[in-house]
């Protein structure tokens, strides 16, 4: 059986998560274009989500 595929997704606060590629993505979340196994997606997020502050907090501080 093929391993399940996931997408790396992000909401408007630029918080990242993963979502099964087979399932409809909930509203307010966007596909970042990265797909892979669960582990690959989580490893990818470890490299790209470098500032975990929600976007609104980040913008208020800058």
């Amino acid at each position: 059986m093929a391993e399940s595929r996931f997408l790396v997704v992000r909401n408007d606060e630029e918080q990242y998560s993963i979502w099964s590629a087979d399932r409809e993505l909930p509203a307010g979340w966007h596909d970042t274009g990265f797909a892979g196994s669960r582990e690959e997606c989580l490893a990818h997020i470890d490299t790209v989500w470098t500032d975990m502050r929600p976007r609104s907090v980040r913008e208020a501080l800058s």
Partner: protein
Amino acid sequence: MSREWTFPASFAQERVWMANQLDPGSPVYNVSNPWPFPRELDADAARGVLDRVVARHEALRTHLRMDDGALVQVVREHEPVRVEAEDLSGLPEAERTARYRAIREELARTPIPLDAAPLWRARLVKVTDAWTLQFVVHHAVFDAHSAVLFTRELAAFAAAAVTGGPADVAELPIQYADFAAWQREQLAGPELDRQLAFWTDHLAGAPAVTGLPLDRPRPARLGFAGDEVRFDLPDGLLDAVGRLATASAATPYMVLLAGFAALLSRVSGDDTVVVGVSTAGRDTPEVSPLIGMFVNPVALRCDLAGDPTVAELLDRVRDGLIDAMEHGQTPFQKIVEAVAPRRDPSVQPIFQTALNFIPDSGLDPVPLGTTKDDLAFDITTGESRLVYRTDLFDRATAEAIVARYVRLLAAAVAEPARRVAELPLLDDAERRQVLDTWNATAHDRPASTIVAEVQRQAAATPGAVALVCDGAELTYAELNAAANRLARLLVARGAGPETRVALALPRSTELLVAILAVLKSGAAYVPVDTGYPAARIAYLLEDAEPALVLAAADTANLVPGDALVLDPLTAADLDASDLTDADRVAPLRPEHPAYVLYTSGSTGRPKGVVVEHRSVTAYLAWARHTYPGLAGTALLHSPVSFDLTVTGLLGPLTAGGTVRLAAIDSPAARTGGRPDFLKVTPSHLPLLDDVLSPTTDLVIGGEALTGEQLAGWRAAHPEVAVINEYGPTEATVGCVAARIAPGQDAPAGAVPIGTPTWNTRALLLDAALNPVPPGVAGELYVAGDQLARGYLRRPGLTAERFLPCPYGPAGQRMYRTGDLARWRADGTMEYLGRRDDQVKVRGMRIELGEIESALLARPGVREAAVVVRAEDGEPTLVGYLVGDVDQAALATDLARELPAHLVPAAFVALDALPLTPNGKLDRAALPAPAAPAVAEDAYVAPRTDAETLVAEVYADILGVEKVGARDDFFALGGNSLRGMRAMARIRAEVDVDLPMRALFASPVVADLAAQIESLIAAELDGLSDTEVAALLATEEGRTT
């Protein structure tokens, strides 16, 4: 005396006989087969017709008997049948209907003892102008195909009687007993071994017991008590089933079965399910015209792993069923002996659910109130039914199962390309109920910071006592001023929003001042438990990357040299007024973190949970509303590194209350009268005497709570509200809670965790993230205002646990708790344990809480814990007890209440249960049972005549040299068949009516001997046989 001949019983007869022994007083094996005679026939002629059928079939003249340790079938010479006739046609209609019904029900529900011929009961009843035959027969001599033959032959002989011509009935080539002898010859030696090897392999690794959610725990012994829900499949559904079958090279039965397997898997969460399937057992043409019992059940294992589509599942079911049918003649009891030799009287072996497709036959006309399986569907083209075990299921649950089966089946056949995981289980109303109605928690509340709320309180009640610690009191004004001064220093040292300050401070006034000061600076506090090992403290300080570390003089050695060591003069000269945003590095907003608490996962290193001000103030607003005691005195005893502590710390300080800071076992905790508010873990409950017990709110969190744990305290303090609060740190202290109002009793068993807090939604979802139906275990996901930001500097881990929420506002996240829970019918939630800790012993899922409750319910047991230990590889249950307990009697006593697999194999007495610093049970610190604790192995010579007898019989039948008083029949290699022989031998020796189920319930020599002695004693007491029988009947819980 008529002549009779004995033959070996068939395997099917043996199986039915053994099963029937579990409760000979139940009509569970009665089969009703009424038939209307043509109106031309009078009662004598009708009797003659039945007589001809009985004359043809030896099975209808057969009974069963134990003969020299083996079951035999005894065939009687034919004698004219005697059947009473009752003419109701002259009665008024109402009376006639009532009488007719009474006759049918009486016949159907009267048990037919297997040891006296014939194994049927008949009555001729005339309701209108024709006689009808009311015929009820024991399943040991009759099956579904027999019913077809019986009806056909009655019709043929009746037609012949009407016309006077010959009956159109062919000679029987052989009789049932011939078949039985042939079968015994066929299924022996290498052929039987080959077949058993197939079944052992087929069932390897399959769950021994279905994981279906039950309404009640299994009783220690199963009976046959059951009920049924009748229903009609929606129009066209069976046609659609047939079309999918044709398109898939399958049969309609396979489609129905695939649907059932899908339902069982979805509802139980098991990805392997085992379903009972009946085989006709008439593989040779000689037996097809014979009335008799040929049916053999087989266990079909269905594999639902790997997220299959409906079509894929159907393929698997088809292939599995074809394989299983090819081995359908293996006697089921032989499979049981090979696969599950140790009988557990609480569970039907191998399969507990079944599905029959009997398109053309109707259902039993009279519901018997019995069942053989936990759940069994009988699907027909007309009315169908679900038969269920009433010991385990409520009627409402059975009705819900029917509705879900129909809904799922209809969706499956409509869209076979869909994944099984995505088939709908809930209807729209149920979906709205679990997602919306039970989550209607909206509560208008502006986001704010802890700082704003504490300062609001300090301004409102400056002179009120905010803190009592070490005999000193601090007013709100004093506490606020001290925190302001320190906060200014922290800001000067670099603390501000989005930075962290670690606090390596003992429980003290300074600790509270420091917490408030960090919050006021805009930074998040990171508590460091100074009692932790140095390596853990070092890890934490490195991982948290604090801008600043605060320590006290006596904890300075635990932290790096650049830490700020507090003393009475620290910041003493700074401005004591509230900080404004202008005083901070950056404005403090509700979205900034307030604290970072480290939690240990079961795997990996501790991780810091980042919780924002808005989440804490959201929780506190709900808590102040729910816990009026927070406006009084709260005893704060748990470490501030534990998020349970937030309630008693920040709750009072935003409600005008007083925090009394003291260890729970210190005199200071008892100074100043009973607190108004106290929050503890269930493990703390035994410590709460009259002085420590709160007057208003007792909040219990951190661990699962049972009514038994709470009962003692509740009885002494009925006037206090008890709140069971559930919440992972990631959803801020408490996100689901249940309140037991003053005066209300603690419920038995698991205390529900209740309903979500304000603006929080609790979702119970399956693996495909679909909501699960009420009653079904699902994983708990939490969404809403109390969600933490994530794990400090762990983006991957955060992304894994905080997922897009499909059931809330756009862009919202939901936290995956890893906990299992289920909705009760009243919309409250019940906690079922950690998802990863699903414990299985002997293949059966174990609820440790259920065993702990049973232990706590025993007199003398003050505290109890049950764990699974696997020191020797094989997981076994060990019970830990605090209190004055007779351990020797414990296992025996528990075995009366709990299924055998839930009785701990060993017990350990402790002075107290070990606790973690947070007050939770420290499972890792529980000692292994001393080796001799499992003393079952030690040989104890039989001590009484009865024990000697039982031991001798065991030894003889099992071919074992030495059998002691503590030896277990099944552990020595016994099986049901040998058990049958053993019981026959014992009955012959002592002449007491010892039922077969006595052996299943008491397989140990001493226990069985005790039962025999009490039976003999009952006789010696001078009771008549009838009285003894009546007594026995009560003892065995059966009705005669």
